[in-house]
């Protein structure tokens, strides 16, 4: 280490390192906490306007939701969800693919089924996103 740098370092007292580290820890913690940025923590599945199921996104599973046209298959994976298949004619909700942000919604209107991801910071839904 150069002497100039060593002189600056000599101005630091033991506790100063602790306080600086504490400050950095606070910084990292707040970044992790506040910048989780729309990670979803659950999914709400509605059929015919009523809540059909409320699931968390911790483990993979599939749900079959009955509607007027037939079965809509919802696939859940850790951190994301999608409409795997739907009897509707235009397949918009299926083509939306995997939803992975809080507030994202896939609506299968003909079969009256919708899949919405919930979570903190769900500022937008798919309509104005």
């Amino acid at each position, binding site marked *: 280490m150069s002497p100039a740098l060593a002189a*600056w370092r000599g*101005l*630091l*007292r*033991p*506790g*100063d390192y*602790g*306080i*600086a580290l504490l*400050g*950095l820890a*606070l*910084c*990292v913690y*707040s*970044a992790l906490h*506040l*910048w989780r940025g729309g990670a979803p923590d659950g999914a709400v599945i509605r059929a015919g306007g009523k809540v059909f199921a409320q699931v968390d996104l911790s483990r993979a599973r599939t749900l079959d939701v009955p509607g007027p046209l037939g079965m809509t298959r919802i696939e859940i994976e850790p951190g994301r969800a999608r409409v795997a298949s739907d009897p509707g004619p235009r397949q918009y909700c299926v083509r939306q693919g995997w939803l992975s942000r809080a507030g994202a919604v896939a609506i299968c209107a003909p079969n009256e089924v919708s899949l919405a991801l919930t979570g903190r910071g769900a500022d937008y839904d798919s309509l104005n996103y």
Partner: protein
Amino acid sequence: MTPSTIELVPTADDRRVARHAAAAIALTVAEAAIPLPLPGVKPGLANIITLVVLARWGWREAVWVALLRVLAGSLLLGQFLAPGFFLSLSGSVASLLALGLAMHLPRRWFGPVSQSIVAAFAHIGAQLLVARLWLVPHDGVFYLTPVFAAAAVVFGTANGLIAARLLKELGGDKAAPAAQQP
């Protein structure tokens, strides 16, 4: 000219406060010329003066210098009573309170750098709070907390080091522990 009937005789203490405040104001104005990436993130060089005054002359005098600096600095920059002034004022009051507590930490372990970082965090804390309650009544302001926290650590450390260096040159850290002098 009629001689003034009111004679204000400044004491040596007054002059000292004014001198330190003048130095702090100069730093504030100089700092305003530095382009900054984000509003609110700035080095706060004037706090170096506050730290030095705190160590050499105590808390009351540091309060005088810091608040005079906020007032006169805002007048010079045309910020007086603008939102920025209140953010600056609340930050200064909070960091002065924090310094009042931090100065009682054991000197053997905690120097000006610790005080500087603690004060910087108090500063951003109060500013975010005021901004949230008054200027931007939405939790969105807290989104920038990590950036402000990082700035507090970096600039707090830098200012603290400069203050410590100045104190060493001045030999004025009266309460410095004996162990500091080899």
